[in-house]
Every structure is written in C-alpha cells, then in structure tokens.
C-alpha cells in the first residue's frame, strides 16, 4: 500500500552534534593537554623554547584561519595586532610598571578597541583592496610606534630582567623544578603560550559549533547565498575581526615578553606574522580547524631542521606552499579527511529520524 500525503506517518526529527568520535577526541585532547602541561618537568630548555614558538604560531594561525578561511576576510595585516600587543606590553611594564601577566589581557583589550576604528576603514574595501588596506594599516601602526621615543623609537628597546622575572610563579618554578632563572622564565612563558594556544583553539571550536559557526561555514562557501538566507554577514565579519584582533594582540604581547626585545620592524613584520601564518594555514588546510594544527607542526619541523639553509629554506617554503595550492587546494588535512572521513574537532550537526512514531 502506498502511503502518500497525509497518510504518511509523522516523523520526529532531532539534531545530534556530539557523536562518539567527538567524545574520544575530547578525551585525547585532555590527555595531550595534560602531557603538555607536565612536559617542562622532563624536557630540556631547547624543546621548551621550540614549543613556545610552535604554540604562538598555532594560535596566530587559528586566528587567521577564522578570519580568512571562514569569514572571507583575507587580511595580510594581522602583524598590526601582533606588534600592537607587544608594544602595549612594553609600555605597560616599562613605563607603567605593571605586571606582565596583567599586561597580556590588557593588550587584548587595546587590540580589540583599535580593531573597531580600523575595521571602519578596511571594511569599506573589498577583495584584494581589503588585503592591501590591512597591510597599509599595519604599516601605519609601524610608523607610529617608530615615533614613540619612550619605547626606543625606530631602533626599539628591551625589557629589563627585573620585568621578565616579575611574572608570578617564576620563584616557585625555580624551587619546584630546580632550575635557574632563565630556564624558569622560559617555563612560565611556555605555560602562558600553552594556555593562549589552548584557549584560542577552544574559542574557535566553540564559535564553530555555535549558530555563528553555522553562519561562518555558509559564508566560507557562498557569501551571497548566506545573506539571502538571513545571515547577517557584516555583523559576523566585524565580530570575527575584533575577536581575532584581541587574541592576536594577546599572542603578540606574549611573544615579546618571551623575546624581551622589541623593534617596530620586527614587531610589525609582514613576513613573520602574516606570510608564515598564511603558509601554515594554506598547507594545513584553510577553512578547517584541523588544518592550522597540521600546518603549524609541519612549519615548526621545517623551521627546526631546514632554517640553517637560509635563502633555500624560504624558497622551499614558497615552493611547497604553491604546490599545495595547485594540487591540494584544501591542504594536507583536506587530503587526509577526504580519504578517511576523519575529523578531530567535529562540528557537524546530524539529522536523526525517529521512524514510525505515531502522532499523539
């Protein structure tokens, strides 16, 4: 017998977001995080320093991925916020005498506050003009900070050891792990970098699982169609721009706390804070949360083992980037996930049908 129209049994639908796989990956994530937290007990100083670098590049990559990969905002000017965050930390600690730990969130707030007027300018530009606009703005930031004599002008300045050692917990680390002050400073920075990286990752993941994440997925794929389905494109883009500026600013503050030396050319470097980050996201897989993780690890390994080759290293980096763009436009993670239908950070919403539930 055919059941057509009204005779069709009423179906009850429900949504399923977290499947068994996501519980497994949550447990794995917790174990990995715990191991990373405890790592300084066993690891040598070189590895700790390397991992600080890996963590902040990964945090920057996650931010840029949200910005460019999802919201379609191809910024090549995020160094504006790295440098701004770094300089805010230097100003607060050197001139204001504040604790560096406090200076990091303040750097985030200042970056967000300056991102708003910046957005007012660059959001008027579309596509390639937007990219160029963000770069110009970052250059303006660089030129402005080069004028600030109190922060060393064009040549820059250093943090005194009294500042870098004033991060709370350093004394405790020294006694608990039996290390000297420089190593203890690195370990404190390591934990800060780990916290920022994990926080950024968690933030991006939670955003992608929210209703805004649904909208970002739509904007990533088809911006015009997203708008005609009611997605408030401009508002979401502005929110993403400001939020990523805040996170990028905090990472910038941490980077320059660890480096203990800042100059306008380094802090607002388009190569260090945009080109490398772009490379990480593109080879890993743009528009996925896993891509930047894979990309950051590959970039770290290349930096670690090939950086001694100087110019050849950069040429290799560029070539790899172009090859991936040409032959695996969805990045290395795209290749893996296509073949094995794998996800580490599941954001899918599944529709589940409960059949043959008779109507009440």
């Amino acid at each position, binding site marked *: 017998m055919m059941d057509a129209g009204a005779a069709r049994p009423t*179906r*009850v*639908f*429900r*949504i399923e977001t977290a499947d068994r796989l996501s519980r497994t990956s949550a447990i794995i994530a917790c174990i990995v995080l715990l191991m990373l937290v405890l790592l300084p007990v066993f690891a040598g100083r070189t590895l700790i320093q390397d991992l600080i670098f890996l963590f902040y590049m990964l945090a920057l990559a996650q931010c840029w991925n949200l910005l460019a990969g999802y919201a379609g905002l191809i910024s090549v000017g995020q160094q504006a916020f790295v440098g701004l965050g770094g300089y805010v930390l230097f100003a607060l600690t050197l001139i204001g005498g504040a604790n560096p730990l406090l200076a990091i969130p303040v750097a985030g707030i200042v970056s967000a506050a300056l991102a708003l007027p910046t957005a007012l300018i660059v959001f008027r530009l579309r596509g390639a003009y937007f990219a160029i606009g963000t770069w110009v703005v970052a250059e303006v930031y660089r030129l402005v900070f080069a004028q600030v004599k109190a922060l060393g002008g064009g040549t820059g300045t250093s943090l005194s050891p009294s500042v870098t050692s004033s991060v709370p917990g350093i004394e405790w680390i020294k006694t608990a792990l039996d290390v000297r002050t420089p190593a203890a400073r690195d370990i404190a920075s390591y934990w800060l970098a780990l916290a920022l990286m994990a926080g950024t990752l968690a933030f991006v993941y939670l955003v992608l699982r929210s*209703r805004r994440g*649904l*909208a970002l*997925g*739509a904007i*990533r*794929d*088809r911006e*015009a*169609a*997203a*708008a*005609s*389905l*009611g*997605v*408030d*494109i*401009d508002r979401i883009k502005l929110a993403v721009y400001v939020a990523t500026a805040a996170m990028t600013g905090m990472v910038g503050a941490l980077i320059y706390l660890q480096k203990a030396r800042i100059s306008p050319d380094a802090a607002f470097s388009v190569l260090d804070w945009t080109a490398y980050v772009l490379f990480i996201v593109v080879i890993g897989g743009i*528009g996925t949360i896993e891509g930047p993780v894979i990309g950051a690890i590959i970039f770290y390994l290349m930096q670690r083992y090939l950086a001694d080759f100087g110019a050849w290293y950069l040429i290799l980096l560029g070539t790899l980037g172009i090859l991936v763009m040409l032959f695996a436009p969805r990045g290395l993670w795209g290749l893996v996930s296509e073949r094995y239908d794998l996800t580490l950070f599941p954001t*899918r*919403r*599944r*529709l589940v*049908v409960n059949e043959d539930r008779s109507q009440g």
Partner: protein
Amino acid sequence: MLLEVAGLRKSFGSIVVADDLDLTIAASEAVGIIGPNGAGKTTLFNLIAGGLSPSAGHIRFDGSDLAGLPPQGRCRAGIGRTYQIPQPFENLTVFENLLVGAVHGRRKTETEAVQACGEILDQLGLLKCANALAGSLTLLERKRLEMARALATAPKLVLLDEIAGGLTDGECAELVATIGDIRKTGVAILWIEHVVHALFAVIDRLVVLNFGRKIAEGAPKEVMQRPDVHQIYIGIEA
C-alpha cells in the same frame, strides 16, 4: 498586496535590464514569469531579494518599503529565493544548509528548527541525503536543495528561478505536486520557468518579460494566445 513593484528600473551601463516594471502579488497567489534568455527575469529576482539595488523605482513588501534593506533583512521579512545556478554550501551537509536558513532567517535556535527542517527535507525527497555534504549532490538534487533551503526560512513569498529544467515527466509531475502543497500552506509564489506546462499547472497569472519590459500579463491561457507573446514563446521552445 504582499509585493508591490512600481516603476522599477535597472541598467548596467547602457543596457537596460529592467524597464519601468510594475508588478503586484497578493498573499498566497502564484504568478509565473516567462521570457527569452536575457530578458531580465533573474535580474528582477535579484532586485526583489536585495542582491542588486534598482536604478529607480520602489519595491514594497508586506506593507513596508524595501529600499536600503540588505538581503538578510529581506529574507527575515519573508522573501525566500532560489538561485538559477544552484549555490549550495558545499562543505556543509544538506541538513545544515537548511539549518542556516532556519536559524538565521527565522532567528530560531538549532533545536527549535530541527523538526521543520526535517519535514521540508522529507517533503522534497532529500531526507536520504540529509547528512551528506551538499557538494556531493547531483544537479537535480541541488535544485531541490535550493527550494528546500528557501522554504526553511519560512517565507511569505518564495522566488523560484528555473527549477524544472532537465526533469523527466514523472519528476516534473512530482515537482508540480510539491509546489501545489507549498501553495496550500499560504506561501505566495513567483516562478520563472521555461517549462511552460509545469508552470501552467500551478500559476494563477502569467507575466511575460522581454528586454526588461513587461509586454503582457493576465490569465495564462489568454496571455499565451496573444500574437506577440506567441512569437516569443516559439523562441523559448526552440
């Protein structure tokens, strides 16, 4: 009137693609649009849905002027649209495609929106691929997804842009039945279609566009008998 278009004009440089158009649609009315390629049919949809802004003229919907309202505002006001060339969110699942419209177009939570989305997918025969990536769909399925997604926004007026092309007779009859069901729920329909027999099975009124102008309007059968329309109609069928 649900939709009132008055003196609408749009030109791209020196080409005029909408020339002093007037059009009204009442609540739960079904109106068809035909016209040769390049007549400005899709452009009219873009003007109504807010993808393009007119050079002159007014569009009122549900009692308020749409001037300056962006596409997302028009969606929330109750205008749903499909694209002639389907625009699925390829890396989202079919269900998630609908969820975008239900959550953002109707300001519902995901949990509130599920049941309605599921029923629309069921109605349009997309339930079996609900959890497949939209990028993996065939062209016909993509066209159905266009319609499903528009319906997920709970529109008062739905704009359908050539959704019957390439269907077999059976599929076409199914589509006509589905659109009939949608009409019964009180949704007004504005439907651009080259497959005239499908169109005629649904619509109350026919509008003929040519070179951006409305050259005829009225009861479908009568309009088709006019010699100037007949001329163009032959052009379409060719």
